[in-house]
C-alpha cells in the first residue's frame, strides 16, 4: 500500500500548498502548513514499512517541531493581532525592508 499512501500524501500536500497560497488568514495558513506536515508524516510512515522504523522516529520529531511551531507561531499571531487588530496577511508586511 506504499504507492497509494504516497499518492495520498502528495495530494494532501498539494491541497495544503494550495491552501497556503489562496488563504489570507494567518491562522488558516498555519493550519494548512500543519496539513502539509501531516502529508509528509504520512510518507514517512508509509516508507518506514520498507526502510525501517527510523521513519516513524522522524514523525515523532516532526510532531514535536510542529508543536513547538504552533506554540511560537500562535504567540506571534496573538501579538500581531494585538498591534494591528487583524491576522490578514495582506495587511501585514512588517518584513518589508
Amino acid at each position, binding site marked *: 500500500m506504499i504507492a497509494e499512501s504516497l499518492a495520498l500524501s502528495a495530494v494532501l500536500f498539494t491541497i495544503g*500548498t494550495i491552501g*497556503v*497560497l489562496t488563504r*489570507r488568514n*494567518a491562522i488558516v*495558513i498555519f493550519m494548512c502548513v500543519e496539513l502539509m506536515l501531516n502529508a509528509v508524516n504520512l510518507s514517512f510512515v508509509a516508507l518506514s514499512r520498507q526502510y525501517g522504523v527510523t521513519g516513524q522516529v522522524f514523525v515523532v520529531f516532526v510532531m514535536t517541531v510542529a508543536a513547538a511551531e504552533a506554540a511560537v507561531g500562535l504567540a506571534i499571531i496573538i501579538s500581531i493581532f494585538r498591534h494591528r487588530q487583524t491576522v490578514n*496577511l*495582506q495587511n*501585514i*508586511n*512588517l*518584513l*518589508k*525592508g
Partner: protein
Amino acid sequence: MLLQTAAVASTGHSLQGSVAEWIWLVPVLPLIGFLINGWLSLRAVGHVGPADPSGEEHGHGHTDDAHHDAHDDGHQATRHPSASIVSVVGPTVLILAFLLAVAIFAALAAAQPDAPFVKQLFTWMVAGDFRVDAAFQVDQLSMVMVLVITGVGALIHVFSVGYMRDDPGYPRYFAYLNLFVFFMLVLVLGASYPVLFVGWEGVGLCSYLLIGFWFTDKVNADAGKKAFVVNRIGDFGFLIAMFLLFANLGTLDFSGVNAAAPALGAGSALVTVICLLLFLGCAGKSAQIPLYVWLPDAMAGPTPVSALIHAATMVTAGVYLVARSAALFSMAPAASLTVALVGGLTALFAATIGLKQWDIKKVLAYSTVSQLGYMFVGVGVGAYAAGIFHLVTHAFFKALLFLGSGSVIYAMHQAYHHTGSHEDAQDMRNMGGLKQFMPVTFVLMWIATLAIAGIPPFAGFFSKDEILGAVFARTHGSTLADAQWFGIPGSAVLYAVWVFGLAAALLTAIYMTRMMLYTFHGPNRSGEREREHLHEAPWIMTGPLVALGVLSAVGGWLNLPAFFPAGPIQALHHWLEPVSGDAALQVTHGAEAHMTATTEYTLVGIAVAIAVAGIAIAFARLKPAALVPKAEAPEAEGFERVLEHKYYVDEIYDRIVVRPIESGSRGILWRGLDAGIIDGLFVNGSAYLARGFGWLGARLQTGRTGTYAWVLVIGVIAVLSAFSLR
C-alpha cells in the same frame, strides 16, 4: 670633474685673499635689510590691529597712487611708526653694498685676471652626478652688473625714502626692495646656472610683490600675477635649457659649461635648441616678443620700483644671461640671429605702441621694451660688450626718466590730493607746462630724453651707435652672415635688423619728445586750483635725479668708439674681453670687426640725423596747446586707436590662451572628465550599479508572506522539475 676645473681656477687665483673674498657680503647686506624691514613691517601691523573703522575702498581713477593705502585708512596719512628706522636701514645697506662692490671692482681692475674668481660658500645640491655649489663668481661682467645694481639701486632707494614717505606699507616696501636687490645680486653673481636661476626667479618674486604692492586694487594684483606667470613661461625654457646642458655636458657651472661647450658642436641643432630655450627665458624676463605683455602692466607698481626693477636692473637680466652664455650663443648662429631679429622687431614694435600712449609711465614702459630689444640686437649679433654697454647706459637714463616721471606724478598727485580731485595723475593730457613748476626735473628729463634719443654726446648715443654699427659690421664676414635662418641668408636678416633698429631710433626720438612736450611744455591742463599746489619734489628725491642726470650725460665715456678722437677708447669692450671676448671673436671669424672710417662716419651720421629728425618731427607735428584733458579727450580713430590699444595683443592672448585654458579646465577637465567621467561614470557609476541591483532586490522583498509563499512554491516546482526532467 668639470667642477674641479672650476675649483682649480679659483685656487691660486690672483684675487684670492683679496677683498673679493668678501663678495658674499654684497648680497647679504640687502638680505639683512630685508630681514630687519620685514620684521618691522609685520610687527608694526600687529599693533595696528584688524579693526579698521573707516577702511572702505575709494574709487580712485588711477592705478599708481602713492598714497592709495593712506586713503584706505581713512585719509590719515600718518607715517608708519617704524618709518624712521626703515629710512635708515633700507638705503644704508645698499650704499654699504655699493661701497664694498667698488672696492672689489677696484681689486678686480688691479688684478685683471683672465679667469673668474669663484667664491664657494657651501654645497647646495648634490645628487647622483649632479652637484652644484652655492658659489659666487667675481669677474668683469658680474662686477659691472653689481655696480649698476647697487649704484642705481642705492639712488632709487634714496629716492623712495621721499616718494613713499607717507605710505602705510613703508617698511614692507623697503623689505621687498631690499629683497629684490639681494636676489638681483645673486642673479649676477651666481657661478652656475642654478644659482643664477635662484636670483632669476627671486627677482621675479619681488617684482610680483612690488607690482602688487597696493594689492587692494585688483588691477595691481592682476598685473603682478601676470608678470610672474609670463615670466614662468620663459623660465620653462630656461629650465629645459639647463636640463639639456646637464644631460649633455654633465655640469651647470659657468666655467664648466664654457669649458665643455665645444663638445656640443658649433652650429649643431642641440646648441641651437639650448640657446633658443635660454632665449625664451630671456624673452620672459626681459619682455621681448612674444612675452613682453607683462612689462607695461607692471607699471602698476610704485614708480621707483618701475625705475629699479622694470627699467634698470631686472629686465636686463635676459641680456646678462645671453652675454653670460656667450660661449653657447656664439656657437649657434641661427639662435643668435633669432635673438637679434626678435630684439629688432621688439624694438620697433614697442616703439610704435609708445607713440600713442597717454599714461606717462606706459610710454616709458614701452620705451623700455624697445630699448631692451636694442640690447638683444647687440648681444644677438655677438657684440656682447655693446649689449652690456647699452644695458649700463640705459640703466642710467631710464632710471632717470622713471624717477623723473615719479617726481612728476608725485607732484600731480600732491596737487590732486590737496583739492580732493580724483583725476588721473599719470595721464599726460592732465599735465602740460610743468617746466615752470618743476624746473630741475624738467632739465634732467630732457637730458635723459636726449640720451635715449641718441643725441651726442649723451650716453645713449654711444651705446646705440655701437649696437647699430655692430649689426652693420656683422652683415659681412661673420658666422651670422654665413648662416641660414629658416632658409633666409643671415646677412639679409642682419640688414633687416639694422633697418628695424634705425626705424626704432626714429620712433624713439619722436615718442620721447612727444612725452616731454605734453608733460613739460605748452599750457598747463591740470586745473586752476591744482596749479597752485604743483611744486618741485623735495631734495631727497631730486638728489638721486641729479646723480643719474650726470651719469646719463657722461655714461657714454665708458666705451668711446674707436674713431673717437680723445678719451679711453672702448674701455668697457676691453674690460669685458676676458668674459665674452672669445665668443665675440668666434662670431667674427676671429677678426676684430673694424669698418673703414668712412663707413663708421656715415653710420654715425645717419643715426644722428635720424635722432634729430625724430625730435624735429615731434616738435613740428605735435601741438601741446591743442591737447585737452583726459576727461574731455575724444576717442582715437583708425590706426591710432589700434596703437592706443597696443595692437590688442592682451586681448588676443586672453582670447586664445587664457580663456580657453580656463574654460577648458573648468568645463572639460574638471566638470567633464574629473567629475563627469572618472568620478561620475566609473566611481559613482559602479556605486549606482550596486545600488540599482540592491533596489531590484529590495523590490522582491515585498514583506508579504503570500508573495513569499508563491515564490517559494514556484521555486520548489522548479527544483523538482530539474530532478524529474533530468
